[in-house]
C-alpha cells in the first residue's frame, strides 16, 4: 500500500508521438496516440502488442531519447527533461562497444560517472560474475555468443543501479533455452533489488511469466493501451514451470483474446501496405 503514497516511477499522461511520413511528403504518421500508463516503483510491467505498433517508441520516450509530440512524462513526479538519468535501458539490438572488452564495457557507465578505471573495473568484475561471466572479462563482443553479449549488456545496465529499468525485447534474438535462463536471472536480480521495470515484448508467455501487470497495446497507427491485466501469480516464479500453472493458462486465454484481434488488425495493415 506504500506504493500509492509515492509518485509513480514512470508516468505517461496523454503521450502522443507523431512522425513525418516516409511515404508522402507532408503526411504524418501517428505512432503513439494519447497513451496514459503509470509504473509504480518496484513494479514489473510488461507491454505487449502486435509488431510495428510503436512499443519501442514508448520506451524511447521513457528513456528521454525521444520527446513526445504531446502529453507529459514524469519520473518520480518530476517532469522529464533530456535523458532520463534514473533509468537504465537494455536495447533490442547489439549495443556493446565492439572495441571494449566485456569488463570495460560493463565499467563504461561508472567511468562516465567519473570513477577511476581501476575502481570501475573492480565493480564491473563483480557484476560479470553475478551474470555468470566470471573468467570472460577480457573477451571482446565478437568473441562472445549472443547470450553472453546479452548478459554483458544486462550487467552494463544494472551496474549503475538505475531506479527504472527499460527493456526492449532484450531476449528476442536468443534461442528458447538461453532465453528462459536469462529470464529467470533477470527475475532473480529484480527480486533482490525491486526496481521499476518497463518490459517490452511481443511474446505473451514471457510477459505473463515475468510481470506484475501486462498492458496490451492496440495495433498501429496511433497505438494506445487497450487492456490491462494484473498477474496474480505468486513469486518467486520459474518462467518454465509457471507456464503449466492453471492460473497462467487462464490469464493467457484472457489476454490473448484481446491481443489476437489487434495482431490480426496489424497483420491486415501490413498486407495492405505490401499490396
Amino acid at each position: 500500500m506504500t506504493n500509492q503514497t509515492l509518485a509513480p516511477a514512470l508516468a505517461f499522461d496523454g503521450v502522443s508521438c507523431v512522425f513525418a511520413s516516409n511515404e508522402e511528403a507532408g503526411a504524418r504518421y501517428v505512432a503513439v496516440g494519447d497513451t496514459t500508463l503509470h509504473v509504480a516503483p518496484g513494479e514489473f510491467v510488461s507491454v505487449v502488442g502486435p509488431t510495428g505498433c510503436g512499443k519501442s517508441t514508448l520506451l524511447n520516450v521513457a528513456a528521454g531519447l525521444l520527446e513526445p509530440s504531446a502529453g507529459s512524462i514524469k519520473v518520480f513526479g518530476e517532469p522529464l527533461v533530456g535523458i532520463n538519468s534514473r533509468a537504465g535501458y537494455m536495447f533490442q539490438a547489439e549495443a556493446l562497444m565492439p572495441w571494449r572488452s566485456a569488463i570495460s564495457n560493463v565499467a563504461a557507465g561508472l567511468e562516465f560517472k567519473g570513477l577511476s578505471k581501476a575502481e570501475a573495473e573492480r565493480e564491473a568484475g563483480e557484476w560479470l560474475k553475478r551474470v555468470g561471466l566470471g573468467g570472460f572479462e577480457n573477451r571482446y563482443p565478437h568473441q562472445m555468443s549472443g547470450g553472453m553479449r546479452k548478459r554483458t549488456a544486462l550487467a552494463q545496465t544494472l551496474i549503475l543501479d538505475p531506479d527504472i529499468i527499460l527493456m526492449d525485447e532484450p531476449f528476442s534474438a536468443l534461442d528458447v533455452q538461453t532465453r528462459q535462463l536469462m529470464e529467470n536471472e533477470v527475475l532473480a536480480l529484480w527480486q533482490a533489488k525491486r526496481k521499476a521495470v518497463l518490459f517490452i515484448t511481443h511474446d505473451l508467455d514471457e510477459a505473463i511469466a515475468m510481470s506484475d501487470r501486462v498492458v496490451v497495446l492496440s495495433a498501429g497507427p496511433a497505438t494506445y493501451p487497450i487492456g490491462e491485466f494484473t498477474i496474480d501469480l505468486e513469486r518467486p516464479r520459474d518462467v518454465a514451470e509457471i507456464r503449466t500453472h492453471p492460473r497462467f493458462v487462464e490469464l493467457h486465454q484472457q489476454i490473448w483474446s484481446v491481443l489476437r484481434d489487434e495482431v490480426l488488425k496489424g497483420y491486415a495493415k501490413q498486407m495492405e501496405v505490401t499490396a
Partner: protein
Amino acid sequence: MSKPVISGWRLRTAQCGLLACIILFWHIFTDPDLLPPFYFDNPDQAAFFFGRPLEIASRTWHWFSSGEIYRHLGITLFETSMAFLIGTMGGLSMGLWLALNDTASAILDPYIKALNSMPRVILAPIFAVWFGLGVWSKVALGVTLVFFIVFFNVYQGVREVSPTLLANARMLGANHRQLLRSVYLPSATSWVFSSLHTSVGLAFVGAVVGEYLGSAGGVGYLILQAEGNFDVNTVFAGIVVLTAFALLLDALVGVIEKRLMVWQPKTAQSERL
C-alpha cells in the same frame, strides 16, 4: 578440385622460382654475349634500354656497402613518415569535425569534392615554390594524398556509428566529450586503420614523386640523376630499393594493425555461437 591449395615451403619455392625465371630471362636477353642480336642492330642496345640484372644488383650492393644510399633513403623515409603522420592527424580531426558538425559539412561539401577530384600531383610545382626544394615540399605533396583517404574513411565511419550504440552510451551517462572519446574516436580510428595500407603507400608515392620532380636528395632524386645520365641500371636499382622499402613499410603496418585491432572480428570468428 579436392586437392589442397599450394602452401608452405612449396608455395615459397614456387614464388622464388618465378622470380629466378624472370631474372634469368632478363639476364639472357640483355647480355650481348649470350644471345645473337635478333631485334637490335647493336648487341649492347638491349642492355642500354632494359638494364642488366647483374649490373643492377652490383649497383644496389655498392649503394649499401658504401653507405651512399642511407642519406637518400633517410630523406625519403622521413618525408614518408611526416606526410603520413600529418595527413592522418589532419584527416582524422577534419573528418571527426565535419561528421559531427552538419552546418560546416554542408557548406564545405562542394569544396571537398572539388579538392578530392583534382589530380593533386600537379600541386607539386606550387609546393616547390612555397616550401622550396627541401623535404617539406615533398611532405606537403604526400599530405594532400594521405589526407583525403583518411578524411573520407573517418567521415564515413563516424556517420555510420550505430544509433543504438550511441543511444546506449548516452543512457549510460556519457556527456558530449565522453561520447567523442569513447564512441566516435574509437569508431573513427578503426576506419583509419582500415585505410592504413593505402595511406602509407600514398605517403611513399608523394615523397618519391615530389623528389622526382625536383629535389636535392632522396631516392627519387637518385633516379632523376641517373635518368639524366641515361644510366638505366641505376634507375632500376632505385626502383628495386623503393619496392623493397614499400614492402617493408606495408609489413610494418600489418604488424601494428594486428596489435591494435584485436577487438575486430576476423571473418572466420564472427558470430560464433
